[in-house]
Structure formats: C-alpha cells, structure tokens
C-alpha cells in the first residue's frame, strides 16, 4: 500500500475529480481530489488511487544537473 507510482496525466475530468495517467505505457484512472489544479502533461505521484502530489520536473532537473556537474568535475582534491 505504500508503493507510490508516478504517472503522466493524459486526460483530466474535472467534473468528478478524476484523471487518466500513463504509467510506463499502461493507463490508469486516478482521483485528483487531493490536489488543486492538475493539467495534462503534469507528472503526479499516486498512492492508493489518489494523486497526492505533483512532481516538479524543473526541481528534478536542477538537482540532478547540479550533481552531474559536481560528479563529472574531475578537479583533483575535490572529495566532498
């Protein structure tokens, strides 16, 4: 029950607070009653059939880029 899944929103039905998401090619209907606004193209984190948070791709990009830069930097003596 604790397994969260991540999916991309491909359709929103605002009338009954549901959305269809794509999870690695499979479609699932979820409830978006716990989120404010959800748009097609958003990535959401789903627990027990409910989207509990949107995933901020910009944040993800920034963080992973920062690490890529740090780890691919071969300046000697850079240990931390």
């Amino acid at each position, binding site marked *: *029950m*604790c*397994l*969260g899944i*991540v999916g991309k929103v491909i359709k929103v039905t605002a009338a009954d607070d549901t959305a269809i998401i794509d999870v690695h090619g499979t479609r699932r209907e*979820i*409830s978006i*009653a*716990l*989120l*404010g606004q959800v748009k097609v193209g958003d*990535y959401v*984190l789903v*627990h*027990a*059939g*409910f989207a*509990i*948070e949107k*995933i*901020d*791709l910009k*944040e*993800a*990009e920034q*963080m*992973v*880029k920062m*690490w*890529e830069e740090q*780890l*691919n930097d071969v300046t000697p003596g850079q*240990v*931390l």
Partner: protein
Amino acid sequence: MSPLDRFCDTELSRKLMGRVAALADAVAERLGRPAVFIEVCGTHTVAISRLGLRSLLAGRVELRSGPGCPVCVTDHQEIDMMVNLARLPGVTVGTFGDMLRVPGSRSSLERERAGGADVRIFYSPLDAVAFAEANPGREVVFLGIGFETTAPAVAASLARARAKGVKNFSIFSAHKLIPPAIRAVLSDPELKLDGLILPGHVSAITGRRAFDFIVEEYGLPSVISGFEPMDILIALHELLLQLLQGEARVVNKYTRVVREEGNLDARKRIAECFEEVDVPWRGLGVIPESGLSLRETFRDFDARFKLNIEPAPPTPLYPPGCACKEILRGKLLPPECRLFGDVCTPVRPVGPCMVSSEGACAAYYRFERFSPVGGGI
C-alpha cells in the same frame, strides 16, 4: 531522458557512491566508529536492500531499519478485531492487499477468507465505495491502514460515500502517524543514532516542517529522501556532511515532491475526518497521539460503532523467538534473529516483519540473505 530517469543513472550513482564512501571514512575517523543511520520508511528499507548499500558500505556506515511498515506495526489486537469483522454475516471486508496475511493472535484475514468470509482487496478505497454502491445488501467495511499517505485517500473516499448517500459503507480506522513513532524510537536511550532518512511520501503530505522536532528535541541530522538510487546516495551524502561539519538540520532532498508545508488539501481532509488518539504499535507499545480515529461527525461511517466491534482482548505479544520488536526499533537487524531464513521465511512467516514485502525481514530475505550482518563490523 526525463530528469526523473536520471535519478537512476548507474554511472552517476557509482561516482556518488565513491564520494559517499570517502565522506563516510572521514566521519568514521572523527567519531572513532562508523556512523549509524536509520531509515524510517519501509520503501526505503526495500530500496536500500535492493541496492545492496549495506554491504557496499560495510564497516563505513551502519544502516538500520525503523518502524515504517504499516502492516508490521499493526497491533495484534487490531488484527483480531479485523478478523472479528470478517466473521460477521453480511459483511464484506475491503483492504489493501498487504494486510491479508498478517497474523493476529489466532487467525488472519487470509485464513478467514479461505474459511468463507468475504474479504476483498481494493487498490483504492474509492473502489470499495463503488463496490458498496453496487452491492446495497452488504455492509462494506474498508480497513483504514497506513500512514499519512493513505489516510487522506480514505478520508476523501468517505466524503464521497457521504456525498453519494452510500449508507452501507464504513471504515475501520487503524491509521497511524509517523512523527510520533519517530519520537518513540528516538526516546529510547539504548539506541545510539547519528541521523535519520525520513520518508519521502509521508513528507509529501506532512511537509518538511513536521520533522523539525527531530533537530529541536534530539539534535540529529535528518534528510527527506526520494527512493531512486541517486536519491538515497544524496541523502547519505547530506547526513555525512552534516555530521562532519557538526551540524544538525532537517533537510529536504526530495524537493521535486516535498514542500515546506506539505499537501494542505490532503492535511485538511485528514483533519476533517480524523482525530489523533493514543494507539498501540506492534513492537513500540502505546504511542501518544499516534493514531487516527474517525471523528464523532463520522460515527455513521465508523465500523467500530456501526457494527459494535468490541476491542479484542490484549494478547501475548510475539511468537516465541521472533525479534520483530527489536527490529522495528532499529536495535537489531533481521539476520540477528535466530529464526531468520531458517524457521521464518516469506513463504512461512513467523512475525509481521516477514509478511509484508516492505517489512525489514522480507526485504533482507529477498536481497541481502547472503550479505554480512550489521554492516560487517
């Protein structure tokens, strides 16, 4: 490649692993022993096990597992009550799958189902509401299990049932809250910890701030982490860095999901439906304000009242020899239980930590059975 996939990049993880190992050595030198961290969430337990991090960091960092598997910490008494519910005529018990096999004092939901009880698995509590609507002749009781991640889903489903006038639906709430459990674990003077990896998805609901007490009351570095390999290494890196610099902060490293205040809508749903009560946890005993029971305004949906479910008598705590209690408190690692892998396996589990796939014993059995125990120190 989506930025999300890059959190699984093997090459990048390998490089970061090198940094983490070097940092860990520096910290171990300073402390005169390896740093000891605990992960609170069952999904982290599984992720760390799968990555083999414990043996990769053997002798450098010790990684323990905490009470964050909802199935493992559901008390015998509560399971006995669920079993009693399933035995009532005309009642369908709906549950998340993991709960089925957990043994109570005499039976499990799976045993009851085999004996003819109507026990059904629903992925979402909304499906249970729909089932109730389609079967007005049955009372459908959904078992509210899990932490902050499932409680708002159950609350929203209850609101739906009420709005639609579904009268044959009710909830048996056994929901639990993570921050009070962390407090209970940290209050144990015998457990010497240097830092915590905090649950990413629970934090998505509660927000980062809900964990500030860890620094204020216990002065321990803590980090909210995601579940991909890079996430976990970033978390370890952060904890080690804080230790080396003599700092203690609650840092959010799962910023793509977790916000300072969490999900306010979800928190509001929880607060509307539930109130905090003292409840027993398997292995940890009664923890103040650590459980969620339905508010009086939801009595008509509260299975405990609607079906008059009496509290089951307290039962002897553990199967003899089972060390789940120490494991859930981060005191022992599964291979240190003498039943592990021999008498107790996922096919024939003795204790709850072997039943749920998120339980520490099950995760170790699957991924680390042949690794050195306790970080190999």
